[in-house]
């Protein structure tokens, strides 16, 4: 099955619905984490980390714009409205990504774990039946490569440093772990995504690939594997979110909401 463009996708109502739902997950994941990254600007413990978080924030928000553009072509509102004017219950990002940055170790671990997930997910959509998405994924994955590289280097550096750095990493992993399952929930159309070929591998297989990569990185950094896979308590893909997201949205959309009809 190949769907060449938005017009063709709109001809099949069910395909269109499943595709849009998935695009919202992709866009909201990138926008939310990209915004969190931007909050490190000027606050990172070293210039290297500061510059990297700024560039990575720019990449992630740029990727979100790409997904919002695809949604717009498929009949949704314009990217600014989608980014700034949707209520919390319509947001589809995994809850882990909306959490406040906490300390530097938390931000590094979260980003690394997400980057591995995102890279596996992008790999699975490079063959997507929706051609515009597949083409974008090929390009985005080449950029994301550097994010993962940067985050794993820091993880390794902090882990091998031992002492307080390692303790903070361990605490970060402990705090993050209960929410990790939320990344691998793909909403009510999970099976259809696979059947329609919008993604080329199942969530279960993606999870196995993720575990394999993360395990080896943690081992190298001298960090323990946290153990059992946690149950998902709050599913962001269904619009269930924490107060952290409410606060983030109010900050992020403050300027937009001051005059939604303004042209910047």
């Amino acid at each position, binding site marked *: 099955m190949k769907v060449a463009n938005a017009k063709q996708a709109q001809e099949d109502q069910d395909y269109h619905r499943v595709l849009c739902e998935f695009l919202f997950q992709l866009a909201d994941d990138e926008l939310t984490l990209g915004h969190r990254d931007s909050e490190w600007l000027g606050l990172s413990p070293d210039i290297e980390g500061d*510059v990297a978080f*700024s560039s990575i924030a720019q990449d*992630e928000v*740029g990727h979100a714009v790409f997904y919002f553009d695809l949604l717009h072509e498929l009949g949704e509102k314009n990217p600014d409205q989608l980014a700034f004017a949707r209520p919390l219950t319509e947001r589809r990002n995994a809850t882990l990504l909306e959490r406040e940055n906490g300390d530097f170790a938390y931000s590094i671990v979260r980003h690394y774990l997400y980057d591995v997930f995102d890279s596996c997910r992008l790999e699975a959509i490079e063959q997507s039946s929706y051609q*515009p998405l597949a083409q974008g994924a090929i390009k985005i994955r*080449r950029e994301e490569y550097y994010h993962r590289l940067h985050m794993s280097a820091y993880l390794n550096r902090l882990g091998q440093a031992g002492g307080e750095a390692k303790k903070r990493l361990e605490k970060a992993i402990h705090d993050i772990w209960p929410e990790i399952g939320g990344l691998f929930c793909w909403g009510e159309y999970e099976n259809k995504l696979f059947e329609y070929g919008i993604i080329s591998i199942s969530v279960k297989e993606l999870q196995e690939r993720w575990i394999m990569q993360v395990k080896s990185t943690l081992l190298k950094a001298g960090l323990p594997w946290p153990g059992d896979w946690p149950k998902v308590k709050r599913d962001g893909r269904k619009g269930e979110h924490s107060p952290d997201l409410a606060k983030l949205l109010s900050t992020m959309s403050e300027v937009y909401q001051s005059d939604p009809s303004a042209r910047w």
Partner: protein
Amino acid sequence: MRGRWWEALQDVKDPEIPSISIVEMGMVHQITQKDHQLLVEIKPTFMGCPALDIIRERIESRLLEEEGIEKVEVRWITNPPWTSDCITTSGRERLKEYGIAPPPQDDTQTLSTPACPYCNAKDGEVENLFGPTACRAIYYCKRCKQPFEGMKRV
């Protein structure tokens, strides 16, 4: 030589690296003419590049200067994707002139430090995978004893 329109676009420089044109950067995919209209298909370098709107405006205003052109449409395309291999040979030289090492052209070299754009020494080291823009990394040349930038292979 690819004709008049390509020649005109030599005047449109990358806003963040003013020594190199968007043609040398390998961003121009195709230019098609229909009567007094031009359709310019451009491959963006990085998805989130903030310079895209400026580039669009500059393409439009430059081509509208050409006689007989009344309308210019710029379309961003992702297929084929822009990769750092799209940069032309002269483009690679222009990057060096600006003090930026051109990107490695071989997958096995992705992570190795490029030759210093000032002295050509090859024994530099990575300072930061990210630099002033997302597409550049920062290196340090042990011979010149100064930092330099390099464009990433993507």
